[in-house]
């Protein structure tokens, strides 16, 4: 009879000490540019760590910074450098570069088909300032330019405006449609037949056409080589914000991002690995 008691005790002990199927969730938010990659790398990570779940949201680089500082998320995503103020409030957080990205001006396929496949930075600036409003002004069809801008706090805008307009916070034509994420931008550019926008290099896909930059007579396409060499001027690093007191799992994940496997995924996402 004693052995039966033993069994029950053992059974209950085992049930109670069984590893619970409770997963750890890592929350990530910030730049949608980074988010594209983040989703890939998170999926890959989950293959080997099935007990870890991810919650990845956009919101922009600035939002990502803010959320991370408040520790409302485990990892922040940023597609630009820290501002001076941000550096001051960074605290015990690392600004880790995980990839290299470029910002590419894109147009709807119909625009490119009508003859616009390259652009000079000054023309780009004029379009964005509202000085040029019709495609025929830059060698395309007689269609009005549907101008698409991103929100001010977006890292992508930050970089683009810096190069094209001279300042990250430079204003653009009020006619511009302001969107939040790269996805939305891609949606509008591919949905329209007269739009122009700028997106992260990794978002350039078959649905949109990336314009080559004509710089000092040379055509600089947004290619890996040009981006790496710096020939392509509109580039930036992609960062994650990792608090120093992050949990072991989070730290492990960031290590994974920076690992060979993780960096391979950077390429898969369309960015350049940080080397």
């Amino acid at each position, binding site marked *: 009879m004693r*052995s*039966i008691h033993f*069994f*029950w005790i*053992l*059974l209950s002990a*085992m*049930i109670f000490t*069984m590893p619970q*199927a409770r997963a750890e969730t890592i929350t990530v938010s910030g730049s949608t540019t980074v988010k594209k990659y983040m989703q890939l790398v998170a999926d890959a990570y989950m293959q080997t760590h*099935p007990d870890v779940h991810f919650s990845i949201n956009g919101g922009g680089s600035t939002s990502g910074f803010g959320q991370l500082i408040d520790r409302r998320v485990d990892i922040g995503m940023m597609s630009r450098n820290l501002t001076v103020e941000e550096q001051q409030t960074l605290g015990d957080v690392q600004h880790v570069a995980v990839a290299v990205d470029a910002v590419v001006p894109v147009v709807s396929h*119909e625009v490119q088909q009508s003859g616009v496949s390259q652009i000079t930075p000054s023309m780009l600036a004029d379009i964005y300032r509202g000085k040029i409003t019709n495609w025929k002004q830059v060698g395309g069809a007689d269609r*009005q330019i*549907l101008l698409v801008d991103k929100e001010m706090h977006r890292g992508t805008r930050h970089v683009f405006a810096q190069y094209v307009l001279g300042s990250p916070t430079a204003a653009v034509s009020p*006619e511009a*449609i*302001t*969107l*939040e*994420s790269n*996805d*939305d931008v891609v*949606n*509008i550019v*591919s*949905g*329209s*037949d*007269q739009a122009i926008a700028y997106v992260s290099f990794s978002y350039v896909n078959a649905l949109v056409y990336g314009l080559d930059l004509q710089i000092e007579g040379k055509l600089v396409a947004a290619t890996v080589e040009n981006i790496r060499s710096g020939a392509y001027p509109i580039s930036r690093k992609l960062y994650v914000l990792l608090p120093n007191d992050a949990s072991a799992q989070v730290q492990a994940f960031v290590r994974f991002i920076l690992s060979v496997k993780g960096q391979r995924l950077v390429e898969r996402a369309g960015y350049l690995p940080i080397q």
Partner: protein
Amino acid sequence: MLMIKNRFFKFSFAIGVVIALFFIVTLGMAQLKTHINTHALDNLTAINKKVRDALHRQIDSNVVTITQIIEGRETRTLLMDALNPAEMTAKQRFDLRKVLAKNVFSQHYKGFFLIGKNRKILVSMKQRDMGMQVPELAQEAIERLEQGEQSALTHPFVYVGQISMWILKAITDEHGKSMGYFALELGNAHRFSVTTLSAGISYASGETYLVNDQGWMLSESRLKAGLISAGLLKTGDATTLNIQVLDPGINLLNQPIAISRTGQQPFTYAVEQVTSTHQPGWNTDGYRDYRGALVLGVWQWDKYLNAAIISEIDQGEAMQLYVYVRNVLLILLFFVLAGTLAAMMAYSRLRIRSEREANRHKNLLLESTAEAIYGIDMDGYCTFVNRSFLNMLGYEESEVVGKHIHQLIHYAYPDGDDYPVEACSIYRAHRERTRVHRTDESFWRKDGTLIMVECWSQPLFEGDDAIGSVVTFLDITEQRKNEIEREQMEKQLQHSQRLESLGVLAGGIAHDFNNLLTAILGNASLVESNILKDPLKAKERAAKIILSAEKAGVLCKQMLAYSGKGQFILKPINLSSIVEEMTHLLEVSIDKAVIIKYHLTSQLPLIMVDEAQMQQVIMNLVTNANEAIDGKSGVISLTTGVMNAEAPYLATCYADHIQAGRFIYVEVCDTGCGMDKETVQKIFDPFFTTKVTGRGLGMSAVLGIVRGHQGALKVYLEPGRGTTFKFLLPVDESEYGLNMPTEQETGVEQFSGGTVLVVDDEETVREVACMMLEEMGFDTITACNGEEGLSMYKKHQHSILFVLTDLTMPRMSGKELFTELKNINPECRVILSSGYNSTEAIQQFSGKGLAGFVQKPFTPQALSEEVKKMLGEQP
């Protein structure tokens, strides 16, 4: 037999426990499985519901958005204008696009379509769409709108190479009349997958997906990897509208083989159920999903979505816990079983080993005994034999075990007559379950010879039941033979001894008589020759003849006395008196340096003896004693008394068979040279003498006379220190009445019984007192000193009527004894006896409750008087 039963019982008990354990564990596991299933079911149901609700909310939010756009101040006017049959300008269209784009794309939609009543696209983001017929599913949606639905969501469909979902709403005028339709193209953020891939996920393998009536997936699978490896999906492709949820029949994850999806496979169980019944359901037994893996599933049909929502989880994962626990338990059970088995085996091996040890030991003992041992069962059949048995009787073990022993070895008497088993004493004892010891049995050997045995039989019990007997025997044939031989030899020896002594006797007699005759003849012839010549001389000679003749007569008398066949004249005699009368005579016949000491009991019972013969005995003994002292100075002690002689004592005496009882004794003790054992043997032989003079007849005469009086003679030897001769003569109780010559005619009182404790250190006194008391009708018990008296009293306190004790005793005086007795029992009656006169003695006891006093030596009357006084005239 009981041991086997026990073992069987224990074994079956153990088996029973194990089976019960197994049963319980199985039951527990079944419970666990059910619990886990229920848990999984609950989980899936909750998720399924959650997804449905989320999807509804999702759709609702889309509806809200589209409504906002249609009815938004900014947009409504533009839309209404656009619906006007009149053509829009490019600018107008651009403005519309800009305005709508702001709303549409910022809310993550992919596009919009303004549709006329003619179901043609009026305005969209692209020029080329204008005038195009709306896609089929959108047409269906418009149908639904026209049937009164507020909004209509299409299922995913392919539009311009992309998977698309539209939500449509009618644009109505102020009267509610529909003027056209507005459609929003749902971006990824609004499609099903967003919800199903977040809210619909549980565990590692749990997912929720939607299927349409035809079983096509309307959302993305979470488990694409499996589909890709199974060859059902290309990397990068969507599962929406690409995968039909069919049962592949085998688990594709284990054996990925390219299967053509021609729709030959049936729907999965879930799809089958939900598309056919449109009812919610579940399955926890496990069925194959589109990967062929076994899953548990919950499903429902959503009318709003017009699609099925299916939530599944791999059975393997759900059962993980169960499998784990089951495996652990099985392993444990196995170990327990193994352990139990091992323990049982070890135990039984131990038992067997110890039994074997015990057996071996027992066998060793059995085999090592000199005695033959065999066991028989209740019917007399042999159960075991030892080696000695086989050796003694010449059998092999196989010839004996199992056979009826009596028929084998005890079937006949030594003379050959049949010995029926019922008459066999061993058999009888065996039947009656008693022990028996026989020395007169004989067993037959195999070769037909006989051995005489001494045997013992002991019944064998197990608990209270007799199960047989064990018989042990020894071959005493040799012994017997030896005994017989010895007896014969002894007889021969005795015979030759007798012949020798007869020879000696005859020779002695002849010699003595010869001498006498020579003297007689010589003197007679002298008379003859001198009768006439010298009559005086002749007279002298004649006197000498008479003398010799007389001597011959004496010799004859002694011969007669030796032969014990002389005539006795019996008279009641007090031996002490005889001794006293002989005192002078004895003094005269001894040496001057020898003293005789007398310790005579005056009150000896009278015995019927021949006075002269007694005198002769005493004389002979004293003379002998005197000669032993041999001229030196010494002491001869003469003692008379009464004693009780038991059989063991009498066995050490020279006597014919006489009964134990009361005897008068006379003891003659000397401090002479003593004798050795060999001499003692011979002293009673006639004509044996160590003396120079003497014929050697004295002691033989003594023995003869004593024997003739049915008495006994004992010799105590102390070589170099002296010798004691003690002869006993029996006292005939019935003659007691004659025995006290000095008693008065008043006689003694008769009392009605009770026990008296007589305490005295002198045996004779004790004996006499006892006799007196017995004559009075009491029973007596004796003690020889105060200590013994005390213990006797303690033992027999209840039956002791009173105590008669001497005053002066070793080890506890009479006074001390009295005190002790009074301590034990204050009512104790004590009569004191002492040689001192009464007043002196009693003085010590005055006031202490002494019951009586008699002065030694006391007569029976005196004693009875005292007793009578004490008992208060109670006869």
